[in-house]
């Protein structure tokens, strides 16, 4: 077995590090093109049927190596962020999959602040179509925001739960449009190559602790299953500790599996370990240092949540937690960029710990509030975060359990984020007040990890080119949220999967050019 694995890890065309939205679609694309590919994934496989409906027991879905949070708005990681496992954070994502809008990619052109992407919506549109069809995204006909669709969502929208229905009513009273959100969970069964039949969502509401039925399009049951069916090798429990550079090229990686230190080589290496671990590995190896941009411009979406206590018995554990959306606040006068509104179902421990952290209440006031869990409904926003000099990742002097320096992440809202957060909080408070919520409280917050190895045309101000090739490090590509030049005011995963397929096509082109050149 060990020998088979070793044999399958020789003569690789491409090695991928990390199996989330950046790594997985690309792995499947390359394998389908007949390339010899393998992925190293730090986490293990989490089979749907073995997943308990319990948040604490599912903590192993998250990246728990300690990170240090600095700045005026220190970010919560752990259960609030990156994943660990075959499929990475898609194992725990809510599966909201809205597309970015065309103007998201051209923030600087529109406002003279932020940065423009080195690509346009039109470059991604065909990939968006492809990803949505493959995952089986459920969504409404006639979605009003963004350009008209070439094809309808593959499945009808999912049912709205209590929080979504209340938010819908409140928004309509205020004159805001809402629609059932695009969500990568199935409203009808779908056959998936390499996995089998994925059933329709049974409304069990635990998407953020792993979907035990396979209804949600996490990558293990979609692109990674396809990749393996087409011949890709996925090595789980394999954490890369350093990249190998020889003769001015990146040619492979060292990794730890159990207590063994191993290495693997390939023609090309794709770093897809997420916006914290990717720059951490680059900094550890002193790689891609030409632009001085590695670890810089760290961004996290404005993500304030507002919760209301309702008379209705809502059972927030039921139904798809990511149900309703409004993009009517995509542009707000006085702000650079804008935000979207999304309804929130919530699991009990997540709700309780957020309330404890955000509310500051303790003692009987805390437990009394928590006893009304069945009556809470939430709305959250996802808003533009500008790249700033003062937000960055660096290596600290403190070592983790594996002997590697812990990353320290500095994060403070700028003026635009503060004003956006205040605007959004006031709006959501008004929404809940409209429908007679008894108690309303807000959790100021930021979510998702973005930036830190931005793409661009100019090697002086960016780490990769518009396709993910690292400017000054032959052999190395990056394909994950770290290449985002600006945050986009939507959830990142769908866009990341589209980028992943686009990078894969460019990578195939590069390899073919090489082979033609050497006459192979």
């Amino acid at each position, binding site marked *: 077995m060990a020998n088979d694995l070793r044999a399958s890890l020789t003569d690789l065309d491409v090695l991928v590090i990390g199996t989330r939205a950046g790594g997985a679609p690309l792995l499947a694309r390359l394998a389908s093109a007949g390339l010899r590919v393998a992925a190293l994934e730090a986490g293990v496989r989490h089979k749907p049927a073995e997943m308990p409906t319990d948040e604490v027991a599912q903590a192993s879905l998250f990246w728990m190596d300690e990170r240090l949070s600095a700045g005026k708005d220190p970010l919560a990681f752990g259960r609030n962020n990156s994943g660990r496992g075959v499929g990475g954070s898609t194992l725990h994502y809510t599966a909201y999959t809205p597309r970015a809008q065309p103007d998201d990619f051209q923030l600087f052109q529109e406002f003279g602040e932020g940065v423009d992407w080195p690509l346009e919506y039109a470059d991604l549109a065909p990939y968006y179509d492809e990803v949505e069809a493959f995952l089986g995204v459920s969504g409404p006909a006639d979605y009003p925001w963004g350009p008209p669709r070439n094809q309808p969502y593959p499945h009808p929208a999912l049912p709205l739960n209590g929080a979504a229905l209340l938010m819908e009513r409140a928004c309509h009273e205020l004159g805001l449009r809402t629609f059932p959100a695009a969500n990568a969970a199935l409203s009808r069964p779908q056959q998936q190559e390499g996995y089998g039949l994925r059933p329709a969502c049974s409304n069990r509401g635990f998407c953020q602790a792993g979907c035990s039925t396979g209804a949600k399009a996490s990558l293990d049951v979609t692109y990674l299953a396809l990749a393996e069916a087409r011949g890709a090798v996925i090595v789980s429990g394999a954490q890369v500790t350093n990249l190998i550079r020889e003769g001015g090229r990146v040619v492979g990686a060292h990794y730890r599996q159990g207590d063994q230190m191993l290495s693997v080589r390939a023609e090309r290496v794709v770093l897809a370990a997420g916006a914290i671990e990717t720059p951490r590995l680059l900094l550890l190896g002193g790689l891609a240092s030409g632009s001085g941009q590695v670890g810089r411009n760290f961004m996290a979406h404005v993500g304030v949540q507002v919760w209301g206590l309702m008379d209705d018995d809502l059972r927030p554990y039921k139904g798809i937690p990511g149900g309703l959306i409004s993009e009517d606040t995509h542009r707000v006068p006085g702000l650079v960029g804008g935000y979207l509104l999304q309804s929130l179902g919530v699991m009990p421990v997540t709700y*309780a710990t957020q309330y404890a952290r955000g509310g500051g209440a303790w003692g009987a006031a805390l437990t009394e509030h928590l006893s009304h869990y069945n009556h809470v409904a939430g709305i959250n926003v996802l808003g533009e975060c500008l790249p700033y000099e003062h937000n960055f990742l660096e290596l600290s002097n403190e070592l983790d359990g594996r002997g590697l320096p812990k990353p320290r992440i500095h994060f403070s809202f700028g003026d635009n984020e503060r004003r956006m957060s205040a605007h959004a909080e006031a709006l959501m408070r008004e929404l809940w007040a409209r429908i007679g919520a008894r108690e309303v409280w807000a959790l100021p917050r930021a979510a998702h990890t973005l930036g830190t190895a931005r793409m661009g045309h100019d090697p002086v101000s960016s780490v990769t080119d518009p396709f993910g090739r690292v400017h000054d490090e032959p052999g190395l590509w990056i394909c994950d949220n770290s290449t985002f030049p600006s945050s986009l005011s939507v959830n990142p995963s769908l866009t990341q999967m589209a980028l992943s397929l686009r990078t894969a096509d460019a990578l195939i082109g590069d390899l073919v050019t090489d082979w033609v050149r050497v006459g192979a």
Partner: protein
Amino acid sequence: MSATERDEILAALASPAVTAPTRAALLARLDARYERQHFTEAEFDRLRAVAVRLVPHDPAELDLSGLIDHRLQLRQTDGWRFADTPPDGQAYRELLAALPTNFEILAPEAQDATLHDLQRRHPHTFEDLLAELTEGFMAHPLTQYRFGYAGFMDAPGWPQVGPNELEAREIRYGK
């Protein structure tokens, strides 16, 4: 935990509406007790005295302080910490040491006054401890029963998800 509470929790966990991995996780938690290993006896007594004020509970039913001791002994983290605080174990030790020496024998109202003061002086570590206790509290099957939480009985799915659309097993369970 009264005998009735215990019986109802066990009956719910035994029902076919609960998947096998869910049942295993919750049964293990129902009676979990931990031997003190990380903190000294004096520190642990103080932690427990603080814990019952922060998140009111009966330590004989829910071993929330033991759970923290156990985690620290296993050197597990929750994936991050404030950069301006020392590692969790040390931070908690310092927090406990910052309380007046007679904390344990103060009247509850006086204890709460010192805790409010502690929250002002050490906001980050206080928040971490409060969140960790709250997690242990809310994840416990007894709390879930008392709060009428039925989300773990999800094997058949939830065909009705609108407000006030409850299944029989949701209406029946808890207080």
